[in-house]
Structures are given as structure tokens and as C-alpha cells.
């Protein structure tokens, strides 16, 4: 682990760079890309809570993403609600859906949980695809409004949308940071390491898992809603299981169960995909094996491996210091 001071400095530099970026490089294409990276990262942070910290592989994540997106899309276009109210409601609906699914799904364990959530994801996809009169079916939902004015602030330019996504991402990361460094986060990790052990020290497994699952759905919903208002068009394809796999890949590349993992992974994979655009359709020819190799040799991803490296160095330092101390003490005793 980096020491606290340099970590804080690094964090401030990254945050400043993100804030100043549009002013220094007003490149529309890059801004568009980064905004998408921020939006997807929010969903991946949600994924990280249930799959990274609690250790349950959920395959319904794209389903929740789509519920958020369609929630916002339908509330604004069909019900005629204002943007911000719709955003709030969409996130709320997704969280409630997450809680309801979680109550039942979390009674199942390991691969049963994975298959159960996969089925939930498929049902969401099939419903969106077939329920023509509500969702527009395969034609999708068009004409979703951009974020509405917030007092004097308007969101009609790309730069303002960039800052909006950055704001929500920062909020997400801050919340995740607080969770991970609180008793709750330690409880999650305790459950991941051993459910039996956690149970014996009096942790309520179900309650904590449910909280984690609901939070993960909440972030997926927020991300989906932001995505809908940024792209302005959504189709059933956003709830396909391949989208879940995609998010899983971002998480895995960045480092599952680490705080920086989701943003690092999403940034790297999306920028790589964009720079290898000729590969667009076949990019899984590369990323599929990458996922397998990561699982085989670097299960903790980029961030996890870097953290591990610093931890090892620190341990070595401590060891050397201890040895020196021992030597001094022995010399002192001898003298």
C-alpha cells in the first residue's frame, strides 16, 4: 500500500486532472469517451460491491442497468415527469427491484446464485424485448431528454454532461470509500472470506448481503439512467447478458475487490476498444483470452497487483527494520 500522504497527493492530482481536462483538451471525441467511461464505471462500482467485496457473482447487473435506463426513459417520455424527478424515481425503482430480487436470490449460494441472477437478467431482457406496447420492443426507446436545467446550470453541452457524470462518479467513489473503510465494508469482506466464520462472530449474513446487493443495484440503476439521458436512445440490447460480461471484464482487468479497480479497468478497456476500432466486433478475440489469463495468473487485476507489490515492499522494509532493531538490541545486550 502507498503511504497515506502520497496516496492523498495522487488522488488530488487525478481529481484535478479530471476536472481540468475539458478546459485543457476541449476534444469532443475524447470528452464523449470519458463521459461514457465515467457512466459505466458507476455501474462497475456497484458490481464490485456484491461480486468484489461480498464475493457473490451476480449476472443480473445488466438487467438492473436496463431497469434504471428504461425507468428514466419511460418516466420522461411516456409519463412526462421532469428529468430530475425521473432520475430519482428510476434509481429508487432499481433499488427496490434489487432488494426484491436479493431477498430471494441471496438464499441461494455460489453457482446457484450465479444461475439465479442470470435467469433474472434474461427475464428482464425478454420482457423489454417482447413488451412492445410499453418499451417499444426491438425498436427501442427514442427521444429521451438530456438532463434538465438545475437553476442556472444547464446540461445542453457535452462539457456540462461530462461534469455531471464526473460528479456522480465522484459521489459513487466517495460512498464506496466510506463503505469499504467502515465496519460495513469489513463485514462484507468477512462474509467473502468465510460465511461460517462471519456467522459465528454474530454477523447477520442475509441482512448484509441484501444491503450489498441493493446498493449494487442502486449504482447500476443510476448508471443506466445517466446512460439513457446521455445517449438519448436505448434498446433491449443494453440488458443482454453480454453487457454483464462486459462489466465483469472491466472489473476483472481493473482489480476485483479494490477501490480503484472499477475506474481503472473501465478506462483501460474502453480506451483500448476505441483505439482498436477495426476490431470492434472481434475484440473479444483478445479480451476473452485476457479474462482467462487474468483469472489464471492475476486474479486481483491491475490495481490489486500494484497494491500487492507495495504491500510486499512495505513488509520487506518492516522486516529489514526489525532485523536492524534486533541487531542493535543484541549489540546493546552484548555491550
Amino acid at each position, binding site marked *: 500500500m502507498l503511504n497515506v500522504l502520497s496516496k492523498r497527493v495522487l488522488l488530488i492530482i487525478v481529481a484535478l486532472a479530471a476536472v481540468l481536462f475539458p478546459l485543457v483538451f476541449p476534444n469532443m471525441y475524447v470528452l464523449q469517451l470519458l463521459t461514457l467511461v465515467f457512466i459505466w464505471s458507476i455501474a462497475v462500482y456497484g458490481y464490485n460491491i456484491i*461480486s468484489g467485496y461480498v*464475493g457473490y*457473482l451476480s449476472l443480473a447487473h445488466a438487467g438492473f442497468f436496463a431497469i434504471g435506463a428504461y425507468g428514466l426513459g419511460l418516466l420522461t417520455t411516456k409519463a412526462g415527469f421532469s428529468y430530475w424527478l425521473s432520475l430519482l424515481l428510476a434509481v429508487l425503482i432499481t433499488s427496490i427491484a434489487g432488494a426484491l430480487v436479493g431477498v*430471494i*436470490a441471496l*438464499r*441461494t*449460494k*455460489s*453457482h*446457484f446464485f*450465479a*444461475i*439465479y441472477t*442470470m*435467469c*433474472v437478467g*434474461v*427475464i428482464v431482457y*425478454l*420482457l423489454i424485448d*417482447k413488451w412492445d406496447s410499453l418499451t417499444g420492443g426491438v425498436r427501442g426507446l427514442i427521444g429521451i431528454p438530456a438532463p434538465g436545467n438545475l437553476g442556472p446550470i444547464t446540461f445542453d453541452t457535452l462539457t456540462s454532461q461530462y461534469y455531471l457524470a464526473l460528479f456522480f462518479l465522484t459521489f459513487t467513489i466517495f460512498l464506496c470509500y466510506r463503505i469499504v473503510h467502515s465496519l460495513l465494508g469489513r463485514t462484507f469482506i468477512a462474509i467473502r472470506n468465510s460465511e461460517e466464520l462471519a456467522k459465528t462472530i454474530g454477523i447477520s449474513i442475509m441482512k448484509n448481503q441484501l444491503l450489498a446487493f441493493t446498493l449494487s443495484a442502486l449504482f447500476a440503476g443510476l448508471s443506466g439512467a445517466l446512460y439513457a439521458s446521455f445517449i438519448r436512445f436505448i434498446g433491449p440490447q443494453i440488458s443482454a*447478458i453480454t453487457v454483464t*460480461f462486459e462489466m*465483469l*471484464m472491466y472489473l*476483472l482487468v481493473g482489480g476485483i475487490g479494490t477501490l480503484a479497480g472499477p475506474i481503472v479497468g473501465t478506462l483501460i478497456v474502453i480506451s483500448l476498444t476505441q483505439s482498436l476500432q477495426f476490431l470492434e*466486433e*472481434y*475484440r*473479444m*478475440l483478445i*479480451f*476473452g*483470452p*485476457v*479474462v*482467462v489469463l487474468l*483469472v*489464471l495468473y492475476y*486474479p486481483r487485476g491491475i490495481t490489486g497487483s500494484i497494491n500487492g507489490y507495495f504491500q510486499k515492499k512495505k513488509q520487506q522494509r518492516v522486516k529489514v527494520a526489525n532485523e536492524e532493531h534486533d541487531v542493535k538490541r543484541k549489540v546493546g545486550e552484548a555491550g
Partner: protein
Amino acid sequence: MELLFQQIFNGLTIGSVYTLVALGLTLVFGILHVPNFAHGAFYMVGAYITLMMMVGFGFHYWIAIIASIAVVALLGVVTQQLIFKKLEGADGMRMMVAAIGILLFLEAFGQFMWGTEYYRMDTPYGSVVNLFGLTVTLQRLLIIVAAVILMLALHFFLTKTMIGAAIVAMAQNREGAFLVGINANQVAWLTFAIAGGLAAAAASLASPINLVFPTMGNLVIMKAFVIIIIGGMGSIPGAILGGYLLGLTESIGATYISSDYKDVIAFLLLVVILTAKPTGLFTKGVQ
């Protein structure tokens, strides 16, 4: 009444395909102890190999099927030896993610090699026959008969041969199998070969009545998951029962309830089952 019998016949056809896929999945589950998400991709590759053999090299349908079984069996062995063998003892999540990685690769590979078009597969058995007053295509009849033959062959292999018994032993109790000197590695790759072969056979048989395309394995594999949960993970009779049950439910549901939502039936069925019984039906012991 005739419509009902027609639908029962169709249900048996689809059920046969589901069963063959689910059997492979359930066998591999005995080795990995996690569901192999890449199994659907094996199914897809199997269909393309058969198609390629027939169209590209002009082989007869049966020869193409045998070649396809061999290729996909080999593919199964390669993934086991290169990937799953190295993950032995790792937690279930890593295995599942590795399987997802293989799935993503194979799907992209299928798209890269054969494009995203939908292909028809010709069959020498396209003619229509009259069976007890029902008009059925020969191919559908063939699917049912071939599936039953394959199931019987598998049954005799598992119960009457030493290697088959070793596979069953491994699935039942890993430590016990080691104690009596079973070669775990050999059993593992053999199981993957059988599972791959069954997937290829199922795909080659089903393709003439469906179509061949890169994502053709997705729905099938997800339904196979549903089947092995209904039938109990790792249970062979369960997979057969579940496969036919799902095939019949779907085909009858499509006629009498809604053909739009026929794919939902399987997943709703599973959600209901797991809601009532979180460890799946017919699961032995405690989770």
C-alpha cells in the same frame, strides 16, 4: 387433439436437444463443481463445424457430424488441460469467470470465422412421414431416436465400463475416488471430451430444424442450466427428466399460452423453483 399430439411430438424433439446439452453440462459439473458457462459455445462451434464439413468439403451429413463431434471433444479437452486444470482448488467464482472468458472468445471466434449471417443446414432427412396419424419430418424423428441412442450409449458407458465408473466415482466423491487410485486428470479430460461431443451432436442434429448463427448457443445453454437445476446438479436421470420436461412445457406453452413469451417460461420456472427451494430440486445433503 391432433394439435396437442403434434405439440407433444415437437416438445420431445426440443427436449431431446436440451437433454443432450444438459447431460454434458451435468457431467462436467461433477468435475468442476461449477457450471461451465462455455458449454453453449461448444454447442455453437459444433453446429458450424458440421455445416462447414457439409458445405465446404461436401461430406455426407453423418460423416460431418462425426467430424464435428471429434473436433468439439478435442476443444473440450484443450480447455480443460489449458485452463480448468490449472484452476483446480480455486474458488468457484474464478472458475465461472474463466468459463465466461472462454465463452466470450469462442463467440467472437465464431463471428470472425463464419460471420454473423444465419445459415440453413441441409439434411438428407427433410422428407415428411406419417406417424400414427401425425405428419412429421424425418429429421425431427431422427433427433429423438439419435438422442435416445446416445443416452443409452452414455448410460452403458458409465455403468458397464471401468472408465465410466471412474467418472461417476469422481462426481460422487472426489477424495474417495483419489483413495481408490483413480487418475483424476484422465477422468477430467475424458469428461470434457464426452461433454463436448454431446454438445456437438445435439447442435448438429438440431441445426436443420433451427438455424446456425454465432449466438445460437446462448439460449440453449441458459436453458440447460435451468434443466440441471431442476434435475439436480450432477444427476444424469435428473438432466434427462428435466430436459424433456422443459421441452414439453415450452412447446405446449408456446401453443396454448403465448409464443412470444415461450422463452420466458424456462426462466420463470427456474425462478419459481429456486424461490421455493434455494438448493434446487433433488439436491442431496446440505449446502
